[in-house]
C-alpha cells in the first residue's frame, strides 16, 4: 500500500487553462520524492491540491487507502503538513508559540497545549537548531531562521506526509544540507513520506529516493534521480544545456550548469 496516491489529477483556476493535466504519482512510506520542473509547471499547485487547499477539477488523491475527499480539515492536518513559501506574519509570536501551533490539529477542543505537546515542540526546535531562538519574536528573524521555524512547526504536526515547497529557498548551504539530513533521519525513524519541490536539481538528486519531473502541468518523467536527471531531458524541459555526471561521493547524478547555455524554444536555434 502506498502512503500517497495521486491518480489522474487535473486542475484549472479558470476552468479553461489547465495548470495540472492528468497527473499521477505515488509515494511509499518513508520515501522522499523530489518534484522538479521549470517555473509555472504546476509544482506548488500540486502540493496545494495534495493538502486540499485547492480542490482538483478531476482525479483523486488517497492517503494510505483513504480518499482525501473523505477526510475533514483536522484529519488532513493530522496526516499532512505543508511548509509553504511563507508570507509575512504581522504579530510578534515567539518562535516557541509558532512551533506549538503545529500541535493544534491534535489538541482540538482544548484551549491549551498538553505537556506532551510542549515536549514535542521542544524536540522539533532542537532538531531544527532553533532552540536558542525560542523566546524571540518570529517577526525579528532572518528569512532562513524563519524557514526553519516553519519546518519545525510542520514536524510538530507529526504528519504521515510532509510537503515542502522550496524548503531551501532562504537557507544557507549548511542549513540546506542540515534540513534534509534531519528529514532523512525522521523518515527512517518514523516512516515519514516527503514530497519536496525544489529548483536545486543537485539537492533533489542527493536526497530524493525518486524524482518526478513536471512541465506544463504534466509528468514528463518519474524514477530514480539517475533515470530522471539526464542532460537530454533537462535540456528539453528547462531549455538549458547542462553537464550531468556522477557525483564523486556517491551514486547520485551531479548537474553542472554551463554559463550562457540557455536553449531557444524549438525551431529557433540556439541562443547566444
Amino acid at each position, binding site marked *: 500500500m502506498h502512503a500517497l496516491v495521486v491518480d489522474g489529477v487535473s486542475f484549472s483556476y479558470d476552468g479553461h487553462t489547465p495548470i495540472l493535466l492528468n497527473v499521477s504519482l505515488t509515494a511509499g512510506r518513508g520515501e522522499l520524492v523530489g518534484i522538479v520542473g521549470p517555473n509555472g509547471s504546476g509544482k506548488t499547485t500540486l502540493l496545494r491540491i495534495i493538502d486540499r487547499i485547492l480542490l482538483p477539477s478531476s482525479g483523486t488523491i488517497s492517503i494510505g487507502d483513504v480518499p482525501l475527499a473523505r477526510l475533514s480539515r483536522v484529519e488532513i492536518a493530522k496526516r499532512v503538513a505543508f511548509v*509553504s513559501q511563507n508570507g509575512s*506574519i*504581522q*504579530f510578534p*509570536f*515567539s518562535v516557541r508559540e509558532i512551533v506549538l501551533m503545529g500541535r493544534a490539529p491534535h489538541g482540538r477542543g482544548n*484551549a*491549551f497545549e498538553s505537556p506532551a505537546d510542549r515536549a514535542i515542540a521542544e524536540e522539533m526546535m532542537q532538531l531544527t537548531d532553533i532552540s536558542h531562538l525560542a523566546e524571540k519574536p518570529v517577526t*525579528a528573524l532572518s528569512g532562513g531562521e524563519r524557514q526553519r521555524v516553519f519546518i519545525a512547526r510542520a514536524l510538530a504536526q507529526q504528519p504521515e506526509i510532509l510537503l515542502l515547497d522550496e524548503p531551501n529557498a532562504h537557507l544557507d548551504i549548511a542549513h540546506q544540507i542540515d534540513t534534509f539530513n534531519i528529514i532523512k533521519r525522521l523518515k527512517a525513524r518514523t516512516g515519514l513520506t516527503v514530497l519536496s519541490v525544489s529548483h536545486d536539481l543537485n539537492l533533489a538528486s542527493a536526497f530524493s529516493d525518486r524524482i518526478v519531473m513536471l512541465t506544463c502541468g504534466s509528468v514528463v518523467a518519474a524514477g530514480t534521480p539517475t533515470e530522471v536527471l539526464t542532460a537530454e531531458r533537462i535540456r528539453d524541459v528547462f531549455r538549458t544545456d547542462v553537464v550531468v555526471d556522477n557525483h564523486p561521493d556517491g551514486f547520485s547524478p551531479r548537474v553542472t550548469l554551463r554559463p550562457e547555455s540557455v536553449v531557444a524554444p524549438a525551431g529557433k536555434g540556439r541562443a547566444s
Partner: protein
Amino acid sequence: MPLIRAIRTPLTPGTVITVLASLFVVLVVVAAIGLSTGSVAVPPDRLLGVLLGHGSDVDRTILLDLRLPRVLMAILVGAGLSVAGAVFQALLRNPLAEPYILGISSGGTVGAVIAIGLGLGALLVPAFSFAGSILVMAIVYASAHRRGQLDTYALLLSGVMTGAFFNALILLVIAVFNQELRNAFLWLMGNLSAARAATLAVIAPPALLAIAGLVSMSRKFNLISTGDESALQLGVNVPAVKRTAYLLASLLTGVVVSVSGVVGFVGLIIPHTCRILFGPDHRLLVPASALLGGSFMVLADIVSRVILAPTEIPVGAVTAALGAPVFIYLLRKS
C-alpha cells in the same frame, strides 16, 4: 521589534488566570473610583455602605440609579470595543483594524439613531445597530478585496471613507427626527449619559455572549492571524470560523455603540497595549483586552465628566486624544 512582554512562552492556564485576576482587581478599583467621582463626591466608606445595602437615600439614588449603570455601561463598551478590535486585527491580520477605523461603529450608530428616531422598542435599537455594523463590515471588506487578497491601505481608506459617510448619515437622521434624539455631537463623539439600568439589561446579555463566544474561539484566532492558508493547513475551517467571528464582533460593536455612540480608538489602544504587555496569543489577549478595555473606558468617562466640570465633554474626545497618536505610531511602523 524587541520582545518586551512581561510573560514567557508557552502560555499556560496558570499564567492566564493570574493575569486576568490581576486585571479584574484593577477593574474593580477603577470602577470604585468611577462610582465615587462626580459632581457629588462619595467617599469610600459611604460607597461601601450603599453597596452593602445601607447609606442615605441621596447616596443610593446617585450611586445605584445614576453612576452604577453608567460605570457598568462604560465597562461593557470598553470591553466590547477592545475585544472587537483584537478580533478584527486577527481576522484581517492588521494591527490597525478596529471598529472605529473600519467605520463599523458609525454603521452601528446609524442603525441605533434610526431605531430610536422611529420610536422602536428598546430591543430593536441594538438589533438595528447590529444590522448597521454588519452592513458597513460587508461594504468595507468587499471594497478592500483585490483578487482574493485584502489590501491593507484599501481596507483602511475604505473604512475611514465609509465611516465618514455613515457619520454624515447620523447627522441627517438626527436632523430628520430632531425631537427624539440626544444631540448629534454626543452620538458622533461618544457619550455614556444615556446609560440606565433598563438599557444595560438589554445590552449586557448579547454583548457578554458575543465576548464569551469570541474568547472561546481565540486559539483559532492565533492560527488565522498567521495567514488563512496557514490556518487551513493546521486544520482550521477558516471560512466558517471567520464568518462566525465577523458576525459576533459586529454584533458586539453594534450593541455597545447603540448606547454610547461612536467612541473611537479604544479597539486600537487596548489590544496594542495588551500585545506589548502579554504577547500576541489571543487566548490571553482577547480576555485581557476585555478587562483592560473596561477599566480604560471607566477612566476615560471619569476624565470626560471632571475635566471641564460641570460641563461634560464627549468620552470619544478623550479616547481620540489618546488613540490618534497610537494609530499614527502603528501606521508608521507597518
